[in-house]
């Protein structure tokens, strides 16, 4: 059942569950951050509307900078602002930022410890018809491996708003990852969000497998858990918006009781959430583990739903992964 303590959306499993793009939370979040701190500034590379930077630009025109189609310049101008007392948020599609400007982020933001927040929009394969050029599926990995960088992947628009606000308050570089499409609103305003913490969204009476998920696919993980319960397979669904730092304590606590794990993310299975969790297990508590995500392949054009199914990240795929890891656990 859903965790009653987290005040999740009571209509979560209804057909008419509220749907909102996760990126909307970024737009709401930077306006709130701008209200509470005059040093918050926003930069955008010719994608004001689709990165939801518009409301901030309207409300704080003197604190908004249109950089044009120049992601390297956006990152480095932000680096200069960030060492001069400002809290810059830079927004573009994740394939371009942190895709194209990786080295600028590495040298002038991360190594330089400039207080810049990087918003990677349209991340994941669910960008849909634009095709693989615009589907960032490596961004968690390239940001997670960077020293001094924190990585947050919110699961819905409300969590995205809270993560954006939290990023403004944390000193130092942060990467925030947002999906484009409308997706179910899982949390509510009352749901707590703490950077570095994972939360149990679902727990069956007799859990056997832990599903660790982030981003838009947390919803599919919950749907899978619900169906599995009807099939007498118990699970825990852990929402892990903080990829770095990873909530090691919560994760290790769960696997010590339920030693079978499936990670779920709209990202390559290498180097992202799954990679972070696998590194932790290898070091501290090896358990059978399955990875749901893109399997070393690029995406293509299609509708978000079609793509999620075709590339093995649908509800059925998560269920199958749970069953596989369960079998492996008993064989061990």
């Amino acid at each position, binding site marked *: 059942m859903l965790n009653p303590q987290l005040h999740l959306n009571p209509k979560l499993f209804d057909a008419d569950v509220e749907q909102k793009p996760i990126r909307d939370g970024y737009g709401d979040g930077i306006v709130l951050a701008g209200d509470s701190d*005059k040093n918050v*500034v926003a930069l955008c590379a010719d994608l004001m509307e689709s990165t939801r930077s518009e409301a901030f630009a309207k409300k704080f025109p*003197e*604190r908004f*900078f249109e*950089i*044009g189609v*120049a992601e*390297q*310049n956006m990152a*480095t*101008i*932000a*680096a*200069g*602002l*960030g*060492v*001069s*007392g*400002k809290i*810059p948020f830079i927004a573009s599609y994740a394939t371009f930022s942190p895709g194209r400007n990786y*080295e*600028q982020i590495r*040298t*002038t933001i991360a*190594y*330089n*410890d400039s207080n810049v927040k990087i918003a990677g929009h349209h991340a994941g394969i669910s960008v849909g018809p634009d095709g693989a050029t615009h589907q960032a599926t490596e961004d968690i990995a390239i940001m997670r491996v960077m020293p001094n960088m924190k990585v947050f992947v919110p699961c819905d628009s409300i969590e995205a708003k809270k993560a954006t606000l939290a990023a403004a308050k944390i000193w130092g570089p942060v990467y925030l990852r947002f999906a484009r499409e409308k997706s179910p609103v899982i949390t509510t305003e009352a749901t707590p969000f703490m950077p570095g913490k994972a939360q149990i969204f679902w727990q069956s009476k007799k859990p056997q497998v832990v599903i660790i998920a982030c981003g838009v696919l947390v919803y599919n993980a919950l749907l899978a858990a619900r169906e599995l319960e009807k099939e007498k397979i118990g699970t825990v669904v852990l929402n892990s918006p903080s990829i770095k730092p990873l909530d090691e304590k919560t994760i290790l606590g769960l696997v010590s009781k339920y030693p079978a794990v499936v990670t779920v993310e709209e990202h390559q299975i290498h180097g992202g959430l799954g990679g972070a969790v696998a590194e932790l297990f290898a070091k501290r508590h090896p358990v059978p583990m399955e990875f749901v995500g893109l399997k070393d392949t690029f995406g293509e054009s299609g509708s978000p739903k079609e793509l999620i199914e075709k590339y093995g990240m649908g509800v059925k795929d998560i269920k199958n992964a749970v069953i596989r890891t369960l079998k492996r656990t008993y064989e061990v």
Partner: protein
Amino acid sequence: MWGMKPIHDGRLEYLEELANKIREKVVEMLLEAGSGHSAGPLGMADIFTAFYFHILSHDPKKPMWAERDRLVLSNGHICPVLYVTLAYAGYFHLEELKTLRKLNTRLQGHPHRLALPGIETTSGPLGSGLSQAIGMALAARLDSTHSTSSGQGKYRVYCLTSDGEHQEGNHWEAVMFAGKNKMNNLTAVVDRNNIQIDGFTENVMPLESLKAKYEAFNWNVLEIDGHNMRDLVDAISEAEAIYEKPTVIIAHTIPGKGVSFMERDYKWHGKPPNKEEAKKALHELRTLGRRIKSEHE
């Protein structure tokens, strides 16, 4: 520094001697380090001297002073001259120069902001300094118009760039932005020494006409002899007086300046002198190209 005074005669002599001492130290530290770049640091010694001993408003005792002028070194590989100048200015002891590029040093092979006071930004990968300087200049603008706290935003930003790094796309993105946004609190200086690692810039990837290129992007362009400190100070003063555009000063310099066998030879871009070469170089520097006799003669 607002309302800059020209350099008077006695002061000029002192600064020129200091620039020469800085060159000597650059040679000594490169020999000690066993790796690093020679030509650029020697070529830029006069410009660094003029900045830290005449142009910049700064305080080595308070390196994070909010009102300090910012000097961004974009082409970080010429950092030996930055380190020596900072040491002479009083940021740290000259003795520490010997630690360049060694384990646990604050004098990293390319400058790192968190390692050493006086470094405004981490640099090395080329073409990213001008945009960071723009970010600092934007912050100054915001602070001067919107802040009530005193002292904030009252600084100018200078960016030193190499000619070779004008081959980077990131640099031209910055040029475009600064021109459009009339960044008049920002002045760039190009070390136009015509060399880069693989050869002469005009052979590797031509940059001319550099002046026309900047003008096309709405910059005010001044050209100077990069070894004439008075020229530089005049140009900086002129740049301050121009409100409609950012200014770029194209400083024509001689790479390896002061050491005859290094001058204008691109092979000295990225290597240090060996013991014998250093001895020869120091002898030339200490005798001002054998024009004067010294105890080394």
